[in-house]
C-alpha cells in the first residue's frame, strides 16, 4: 500500500473517530448536551487525535528507522571474500541499494524482475536500460543481499501498514471506550495538545543535540585514525586517496580568517557609516526606501553572490589588479571572496547597528547638541561610544556569518590550501574543505572524509562562541536603555 493511500485511510479513520466520538457523547445524554462535561466537538476531537496522531508518529519513526534494520540484515549476506580490493562492505551496500532501487523501478513499470535476479548479466543490461548504470556485474552475494533487502523492504512496508492501521483502530476504540458524560473531553484534548506543543519546542533542542552528536561522534572516529595534535597544529593540508594524508587545519583556518577579515574591512565601515547616516541624518522618506534597499542584499541567496564572484568580480580583479601588479593569475582569490562576502554582510552590520543607534536615548544627543557640539561630534563622541557594545555585537554576528559562509568561498576563493599573505592568491577555507571532502568519492570511513566532521566541529565551536558573545553583549546593551 502506498504512503499516500495509507495517509488517506488514516485521515478517514480520524474523521470517523470525530463523528463517532461526538455522536456517542451526544447519544449518551440523549441529546441534552448540557449534561456533558464538555462541548460535543471535544469528544470528537480527542477521539480523532487518539486515532491519527500515534499512527502517524509510528509511520514517521518506522520510515526513519527501517533502513537501519533492513541493511544490517542484508549486509551480513555479503560474502567478504567477494569484496573487490579496497572496497568495504559498506561500499558494496551502496551498490546493493542502487540495484534494489532499480529493480523496484522496473517492477513498478510492470516488468517481471524475478528472472533478472538469476542472471547478473541480464540484470546489468536491464538496469542500464532503466538508467541505473553499474560498473561491474553484481556478484552472487550482492544479488542475494539485494534480494534480501527487497524482500525485507516489502515485508517491512507491509508490517508498517498493518501496525499503523492496527494502532489507529486501537486508538479509535480506546477513545470511544472512554466517552461518558462525565469524561472531561476538553481537558483531555488540551492535555493532548499541550504534549504536542511541548514536543514541538523540543525539536529545537533535539536539533542541537543532533548537530553536536553527529559532529562529535564522527570527529572522535576521525581522531582515532588521525592524531588530534597533527590536525590542530600541522601547517600542511594534502589529502591523498591512498592514505598518508596530511590534514592540518591551520592553512584552512588562515584562509577562513583572511577572507572574513577582508569581508569585515569592506562591510564594517560601509555598514556602520550607512547606519549612522540613516539613523542620524537621513530624512524619513530617504530612510523609508534606502533601508529596505540595503536589506535586499541580505535576502539574496549566497549562491547568487557565489556566481557574482565567479563570473564578474574574480575576472575583474584578476585583469585589473592582480595581473598588472604581478600578484597572480588566479580569478579565484581571497580578495574576490572577501570583497563579495563583504557586500553580503553589509546589511548584517548596518541593520543591527541602525537599530542599536536608534536605541540610544535622544536625551544624550540633546545634551551634547545643547553644549554646542556639532552633529558629527555628537555622533563620534556620544552616540557611537554609547552604542559601542551593541555595534561590537553586530560586528561579531557579521564575523560569525562570514566565517560560516560556504557558497561564496566555494565559488570565489579557490581550493588551494596554503598559508600566504598575498590576497590575490587562491586559498581555501574550512567550509570549502567540508564540502569537498564530503562530496568526493572517497570511502566514508577514511580519515580524508571524516576530517570534514572535525572541520565542522571546529566551525561550529568558533561560530557558536562568536554568537554567544555577541548575543550576550547585545542583550546587555538593550537592557541598559530599556
Amino acid at each position: 500500500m502506498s504512503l499516500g493511500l495509507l495517509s488517506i485511510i488514516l485521515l478517514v479513520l480520524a474523521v470517523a473517530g470525530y463523528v463517532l466520538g461526538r455522536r456517542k457523547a451526544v447519544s449518551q445524554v440523549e441529546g441534552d448536551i448540557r449534561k456533558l462535561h464538555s462541548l460535543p466537538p471535544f469528544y470528537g476531537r480527542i477521539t480523532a487525535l487518539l486515532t491519527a496522531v500515534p499512527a502517524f508518529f509510528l509511520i514517521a519513526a518506522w520510515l526513519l528507522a527501517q533502513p537501519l534494520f533492513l541493511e544490517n540484515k542484508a549486509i551480513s549476506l555479503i560474502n567478504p571474500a567477494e569484496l573487490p580490493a579496497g572496497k568495504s562492505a559498506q561500499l558494496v551496500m551502496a551498490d546493493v541499494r542502487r540495484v534494489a532501487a532499480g529493480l523496484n523501478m522496473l517492477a513498478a513499470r510492470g516488468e517481471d524482475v524475478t528472472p533478472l535476479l538469476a542472471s547478473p548479466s541480464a540484470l546489468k543490461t536491464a538496469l542500464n536500460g532503466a538508467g541505473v548504470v553499474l560498473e561491474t556485474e553484481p556478484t552472487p552475494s550482492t544479488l542475494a543481499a539485494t534480494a534480501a533487502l527487497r524482500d525485507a523492504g516489502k515485508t517491512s512496508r507491509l508490517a508498517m501498514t498493518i501496525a499503523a492501521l492496527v494502532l489507529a483502530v486501537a486508538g479509535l476504540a480506546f477513545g470511544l471506550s472512554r466517552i461518558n458524560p462525565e469524561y472531561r473531553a476538553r481537558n483531555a484534548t488540551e492535555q493532548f495538545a499541550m504534549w504536542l506543543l511541548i514536543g514541538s519546542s523540543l525539536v529545537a533542542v533535539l536539533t542541537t543535540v543532533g548537530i553536536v552528536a553527529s559532529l562529535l561522534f564522527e570527529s572522535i572516529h576521525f581522531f582515532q585514525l588521525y592524531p588530534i595534535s597533527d590536525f590542530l597544529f600541522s601547517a600542511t593540508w594534502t589529502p591523498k586517496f591512498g592514505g598518508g594524508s596530511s590534514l592540518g587545519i591551520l592553512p584552512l583556518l588562515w584562509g577562513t580568517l583572511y577572507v572574513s577579515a577582508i569581508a569585515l574591512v569592506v562591510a564594517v565601515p560601509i555598514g556602520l557609516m550607512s547606519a549612522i547616516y540613516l539613523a542620524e541624518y537621513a530624512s524619513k522618506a530617504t530612510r523609508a526606501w534606502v533601508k529596505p534597499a540595503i536589506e535586499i542584499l541580505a535576502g539574496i541567496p549566497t549562491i547568487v553572490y557565489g556566481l557574482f564572484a565567479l563570473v564578474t568580480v574574480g575576472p575583474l580583479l584578476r585583469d585589473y589588479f592582480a595581473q598588472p601588479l604581478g600578484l597572480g593569475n588566479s580569478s579565484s582569490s581571497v580578495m574576490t571572496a572577501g570583497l563579495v562576502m563583504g557586500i553580503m554582510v553589509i546589511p548584517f552590520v548596518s541593520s543591527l547597528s541602525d537599530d542599536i543607534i536608534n536605541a540610544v536615548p535622544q536625551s544624550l544627543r540633546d545634551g551634547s547638541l545643547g553644549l554646542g557640539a556639532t552633529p558629527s561630534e555628537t555622533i563620534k563622541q556620544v552616540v557611537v561610544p554609547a552604542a559601542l557594545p551593541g555595534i561590537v555585537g553586530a560586528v561579531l554576528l557579521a564575523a560569525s556569518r562570514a566565517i560560516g559562509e560556504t557558497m561564496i568561498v566555494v565559488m570565489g576563493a579557490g581550493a588551494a590550501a596554503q598559508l600566504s599573505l598575498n590576497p590575490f592568491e587562491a586559498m581555501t577555507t574550512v567550509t570549502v574543505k567540508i564540502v569537498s571532502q564530503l562530496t568526493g568519492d572517497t570511502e566514508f570511513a577514511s580519515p580524508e572524509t571524516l576530517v570534514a566532521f572535525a572541520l565542522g566541529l571546529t566551525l561550529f565551536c568558533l561560530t557558536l562562541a562568536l554568537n554567544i558573545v555577541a548575543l550576550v553583549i547585545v542583550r546587555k546593551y538593550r537592557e541598559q536603555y530599556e
Partner: protein
Amino acid sequence: MKDQRLETRVDTQTIKIEARKAQVYYGTNHAIKDVDVDIMDKTVTAFIGPSGCGKSTFLRCLNRMNDTIPSCRVEGSITLEGESIYDPRVDPVQLRARIGMVFQKPNPFPKSIYDNVAYGPKIHGLTRNKAELDAIVESCLRKAALWNEVQDRLNAPGTGLSGGQQQRLCIARAIATSPEVLLMDEPCSALDPIATAQVEELIDELRSQFSVVIVTHSMQQAARVSQRTAFFHLGNLVEFGETGQIFTNPKDPRTESYISGRIG
C-alpha cells in the same frame, strides 16, 4: 531663608536676551504667539504655566535646540546682546556655546565624570593643555557643589551617580563652556525632594555669574528660586514681571487662577 530669597530684588538691569513678537510653528500648529520677553543678566527668570502651554518650546528656541525638529519654524525677533540668533549667518554651534542648556531628565554621557565635564571645553577648544582642562573641571564641579562628592572618583562613569548628583553633573557640564545664559528645562522634575533642594540652592548660587532661565511646573519652586517670572498660557505670554508681584498681586485674572490652582 526662603522668604528672604523671595524678597531679593533684581540686581542688574542688563538685558541678555530680548524676544519681540516671537512666534513658533510646528507645521501648521501655532505653538507660541507674540511673545515679548527680556531676560536679564545675573537673574533667575522662571517660566511657569500649565502643561502644553509652550514654555519648554519657547525655552528651546532660545538656543535653537528646536532646529533638530524639521517641522519647527520660528518668526519674530530673538536677540542675544542685540544680535539676532536666527540670523542665517549665525552658527547654532557657536550660539549654544554661549547659551547652555540643562534638561528635564539628567542625561550624563556614558563617560567618566571628568570626561562629562571636559566635553564642552574640548569640543570648543577652550583650553591649551591638560592642566587648564583639569582646572576647569575642578572649578565647574565645585560651582555645581559636586566636587566634594566625586573628587576621588573622577574616572568613574557619570551614569553611576545618583539622580541628584547626575543632574548637578549635567549643570557642571553646561557651565564648563562658560556660557552667558543657562537654560534649564524642568531640571528638578525627575529628582526627589532632597536632590531638588540641593539643585535649587545651586541655581541661586549660579545667579552670581550667569543669567538663568528655568522652566518649572512647580509654582513653589519658581517662587523660591526666581527673581522674575513669566506666565505662559496656551502659547501666549500672559504676564511677565517680578516674581514677588506675580505671586502676590497678579494683574491678569488667568495668572491668578493658575496661581490659586484653578487651572493647570
